[in-house]
């Protein structure tokens, strides 16, 4: 089974401390996931200011460039992991969150764990 772990932000990316410590810890974490054979894919995303949205609302197509003022949440990156159970994917997400707590005190973020549909 594969799970998408979305790194979701719902507030500004402010935290105390040195961002390089967090980056290094997360780099090592991703390398560990790969070495353990769990990782299928992982990437960070550019800020929403450089993104765009193509909306379909009320039958109308609208293209909006970032940043998206009204957005309450945005995605900063993702992992795709191969796990035997949802609990295992949650544990992977928890470990990542723990690293954030340790290396970036004050940083608030969400890891959303979603199973990738497997139509057989």
């Amino acid at each position, binding site marked *: *089974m594969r799970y998408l772990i979305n790194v979701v932000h719902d507030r500004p990316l402010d935290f105390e401390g040195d961002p390089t410590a967090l980056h290094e810890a997360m780099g090592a974490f991703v390398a560990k996931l*790969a*070495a*353990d*054979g*769990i*990782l*299928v*894919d992982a990437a960070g995303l550019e800020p929403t200011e450089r993104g765009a949205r193509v909306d379909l609302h009320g039958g109308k197509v609208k293209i909006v460039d970032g940043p998206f003022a009204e957005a309450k949440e945005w995605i900063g990156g993702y992992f*795709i992991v*191969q*796990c*035997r*159970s949802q*609990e*295992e994917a*949650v*544990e*992977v997400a928890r470990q990542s969150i*723990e690293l954030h707590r340790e290396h970036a005190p004050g940083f608030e973020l969400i890891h959303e764990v979603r199973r990738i549909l*497997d*139509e*057989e």
Partner: protein
Amino acid sequence: MIGERTDGVHRTVEAVWRLESAKIIAVLARTVNDVGLAEELASDAVIAALEQWPAEGVPDKPGAWLMVTAKRRAVDRIRRDQNLKGKYEQVARQLEASGQSEDPIAEAESELDDDIGDELLRVVFCACHPVLSIEARAALTLKAAAGLTTGEIARAYLTSEPTVAQRIVRAKRKLEAAGVTFEAPSPAEFGERLEAVLEVVYLIFNEGYTATVGDDLMRPQLCEDAMRLAQRLTALLPDQPEVFGLAALLDFQASRARARTDADGEPVPLPEQNRAKWDRLLIRRGLATLHRSSAWGDDAGPYVLQAAIAACHARAAGADETDWVRIAGLYSRLLAVQPSPVVALNRAVAFGMAFGPERGLELVDEIAELPALKDYHLVPAVRGEMLERMGRAEEARNAFEHAAELTDNLREKGQLRRRAGDLGDAV
């Protein structure tokens, strides 16, 4: 032991076990110098977790908790068991000392984070030791290196839990009797032993892959377990191209899982598969993994070559864009390092696709009389295919009919008869 009940904490214990057990076992095996004993000690810690976590909650560092607990239980067990006492008293004292350190959890955490690649490898090499039967190797590898419980292994192999438990106990005894407790292969035997490890991983994958029918979800899981083992081996043996070859091959094969049977469960040959159903993520990881098997010299081994062939298919946007010339060349190299009648037949097919049916037919006829292929239905089936493309309908029909007679698989028989029938109309 665990696996039947499905409450939340239970599943969390299993999840942590799956993520951390191989490392816990590796660290313990280094301490007691015995993989079998280490695996038992680690299992003791899981039992403790099942007892304590529901009441006390899941600890902050569950992996380190298991490690610390395994050490404590090891001390108890060594002190209690007269057989172990003499041999391991020194170990018990050492474990006790580390348990009394200022912050045992932090110590355990750093032990698990340390580079324990050598220890992990030793565990795998012991589990795949040639003194063991192939079933025992697979079971022990899944238990000690892939974090499966006995119950999970039993379900994956459609057998009972006691059978698997017994298989593992016997395997450990056999290793002990052979004096293989925690050894690394000597440089002289390394190549052969690595081959044995890769074979076990490939067999685990195929056990899951060939079982296409049924709604048992454990079987495809087995493929994922094998893929995970293969990926882990690439991290442990970064200078062994065949390990990358195997990992890539598994990714490519798994990438086609959804396309290889049709709605009725009939197998769909590769050229006719709906490529939109191929898993692009696995193909991408497979290509990246294959790329890292840097040894692209003349000495590429069978897994690298098979993965390279699979990569040609994976890269082609459509069946008619397949680089058959390259595939034909790769099959020639594969035949040289792994001479087998089936490889020879596949090579004939590839040559037929690359250089025309005349060339393909020539190669099929060269091998058709080999004892191993004499009654193999795919030989006349391939002949029929080549003859049909050459416009020799009558001979093609005879070949398909002959092929239909040789196979006991009713579906294939039907398909071959249909092809023969279609040609009959044309004559």
